[in-house]
């Protein structure tokens, strides 16, 4: 009916190549953006921002980052937690060393530092592939956590080894620290998420993205047609780590405010982000959002339903949460191995034909 290309004429190549070629899709996208930027900030409170929106937005950035590396370039990585820690500690060191500089630049710089570290740990990917590369990145995970635990310089010699985010402002509004109003950190993260998604989307459909996908699909063939594997793989590591670093910096400074490396950036974080992109859909920006939403929001929703509405004991609810989320993951992956993004794609195909089946 209303979801189809028919009658939606394009007169330029730019129109033809846009991300959302179908009018309905495009308006839906604009609507989501307007809603997120212009409506949500006025209605959210502390609970919504700290328990739902911040984790969702921040994990989305991490998932986008990892998706570039795993989904687009085919390099399996288990070092996400470690790279997030690099972002967090870089942000902390920058925040405390240069308090006069804007937090926005600290977060971007933290991403830059992480990109450098990512390239360093990406070097083995030139020689080793598949599961073996996963093990090499696992080493990065453990090494980085050990490093931040071991060297007191990283946590400014505090007695407990914790890093705590000092209060920082942007245009006079506090975005980190305890005195923030709910909308400020939300908008701060939202801007960064939007920028990350736009950059990632445009990188992946340009030449760079095609090189990554060529490497992913068959690296020898890619080399023969003129893709430089060194450049392609290392740029994938750099771009991916940049986003992961930004998410780590936000995770520490805006969301949690105080972080302990072993607990916040342990191996379970690497798995969590990896599961997000597997469930959401490898090689899809929408999939990164869908996966992050699924794994962040589902437990909170279940908790609110089981404990808040049904009044069940908290431990029973916590155990059931594991069961239900686990079962849903299995069901989703059996029903659609390519993730939520593929479900969405199929749904869209069906919508195009609806109400006529052929």
């Amino acid at each position, binding site marked *: 009916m209303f979801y189809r290309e028919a009658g939606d004429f394009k007169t330029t190549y730019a129109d033809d190549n846009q991300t959302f070629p179908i009018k309905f899709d495009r308006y839906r996208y604009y609507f989501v953006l307007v809603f997120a930027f212009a409506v949500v900030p006025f209605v959210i*409170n502390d609970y919504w921002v700290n328990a739902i929106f911040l984790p969702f937005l921040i994990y989305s950035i991490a998932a986008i980052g990892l998706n570039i590396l795993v989904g687009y370039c085919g390099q399996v990585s288990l070092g996400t937690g470690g790279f997030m820690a690099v972002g967090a500690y870089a942000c902390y060191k920058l925040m405390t060393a240069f308090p006069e500089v804007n937090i926005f630049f600290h977060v971007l710089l933290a991403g830059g530092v992480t990109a450098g570290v990512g390239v360093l740990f990406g070097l083995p990917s030139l020689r080793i592939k598949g599961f073996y590369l996963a093990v090499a990145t696992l080493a990065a995970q453990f090494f980085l956590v050990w490093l931040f635990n071991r060297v007191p310089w990283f946590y400014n010699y505090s007695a407990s080894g914790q890093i705590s985010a000092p209060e920082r402002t942007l245009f006079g509004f506090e975005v980190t620290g305890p005195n923030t109003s709910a909308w400020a950190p939300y908008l701060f993260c939202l801007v960064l998420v939007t920028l990350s998604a736009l950059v990632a989307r445009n990188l992946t459909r340009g030449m760079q993205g095609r090189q990554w996908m060529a490497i992913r699909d068959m690296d020898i063939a890619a080399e023969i047609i003129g893709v430089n594997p060194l450049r392609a793989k290392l740029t994938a590591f750099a771009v991916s780590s940049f986003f992961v670093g930004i998410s780590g910096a936000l995770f520490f400074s805006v969301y949690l405010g105080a972080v302990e490396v072993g*607990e916040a950036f342990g191996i379970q974080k690497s798995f969590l982000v990896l599961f997000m992109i597997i469930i959401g859909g490898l090689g899809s920006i929408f999939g990164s959002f869908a996966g992050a939403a699924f794994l962040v929001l589902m437990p909170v929703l279940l908790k609110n*339903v089981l404990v*808040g509405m049904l009044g069940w004991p908290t431990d029973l609810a916590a155990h059931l949460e594991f069961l239900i989320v686990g079962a849903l993951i299995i069901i989703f992956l059996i029903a659609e191995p390519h993730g939520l993004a593929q479900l969405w794609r199929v749904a869209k195909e069906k919508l195009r034909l609806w109400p006529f089946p052929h």
Partner: protein
Amino acid sequence: MKLKLATWATAALMTASPVLADLVMPSLSFRTGPYAVGGIPLADGYADYFTMVNERDGGIGGVPVRVLECETGYNTEKGVECYESTKGEGSLLYQPFSTGITYQLIPKVSADGIALHTMGYGRTSAANGKVFSNVFNFPANYWDAASVAINYLLDENGGDISGKKIALVYHNSAYGKEPIRTLEKLSEKHGFELLLLAVDHPGQEQKSQWLQIRREKPDNVLMWGWGVMNQVAVQEAANIRYPMENFIGAWWSGAEADVLPAGDAANGYKALTMNGVGKDFPIYDDLQKYVYDAGLAAGAGNQTGTVLYSRTIYAGFLAHMAILKAQEMHGVADITQAMMVDGMENLEITDAMMEKYGVAGMGPEFSVSCENHGGPGLGAVTQWDASAGVWNQITDFKVSDKSIIDPLILEDSMAFAAENNIAERCN
């Protein structure tokens, strides 16, 4: 989905909040995960104490207490979610029983004006009330514990431990790292050699640390462990035949669940405590009558009388007294969050009060002031008797070495004040 979540959440809020006034005590519990072994007795004790108060006295000052439990799994992200979801309900006092969550809540509670009580854990320098307006860590803190342990060793060795080798096996987190600085200062003062051995979360793998202990043969081993790490450490110590009486755990490493898995081999293991242990307190008669016999016990009801259960009974008692104090100060029964902070800050615990509420001897007499949020810093040593299956208190409550700890507290709290631009209060 978000819209649905919103409607459900509001529906939940509406059904959950009764019209009547009540005193909301949030309990950020962890009944799941690798630290559940400590989290279950802590949560049960806290809930049972307030159930008893409601059943016996009809609440505090006539206003019933509502314990609002929220599962954190000892995870800081869930801790944030729990804090945000409970603070709007008028929560009076947070006791997260997790140092990681405490570090996150310290700035938040100060901004929101809610009291935070971290009894024997959390940020030690919060004892300085001039900087930490809403955070309390009486009756004792980690640094007191480290000092009490060293004092105990001094007593045992006739006042001289120079040249001895003491190992610290610690949980590699904010919690485990807290005592290190104090122990380093103490090692300078008393001339013992300190050996630091970190155990990573969750603490099930300690083979290499205990091999190192077997090689280095320290005279004493101190342990800052929590959760599953404790039982593994006791078992490993037994495996290398380390003399148990030379092995001293912190007060979060000295519960029944920590020593029972090792069986008879754990006999003689020592641990610090800040509260009286055992069931010989009159309050247990009331608990029996109003809670257990009435079938109102929290959880599985099998934790009664254990060390950690008694600790939250004591924590509940202190919170109870602080609420009474706040009610008395402001002349209102249904106190607000700000009044609760006043109640905590002006709390005075006397022997007569402890006698009256059936907890005589469970803790020391002390009073809190604007400057001092840390209490007297007393600790005692307990020892496990495996055949009887009980912890016996083998020393009196003794004072820590304040000449070492007070300057450290001042230094650390001033650094925090400078970092966060906090002006000193109480002047």
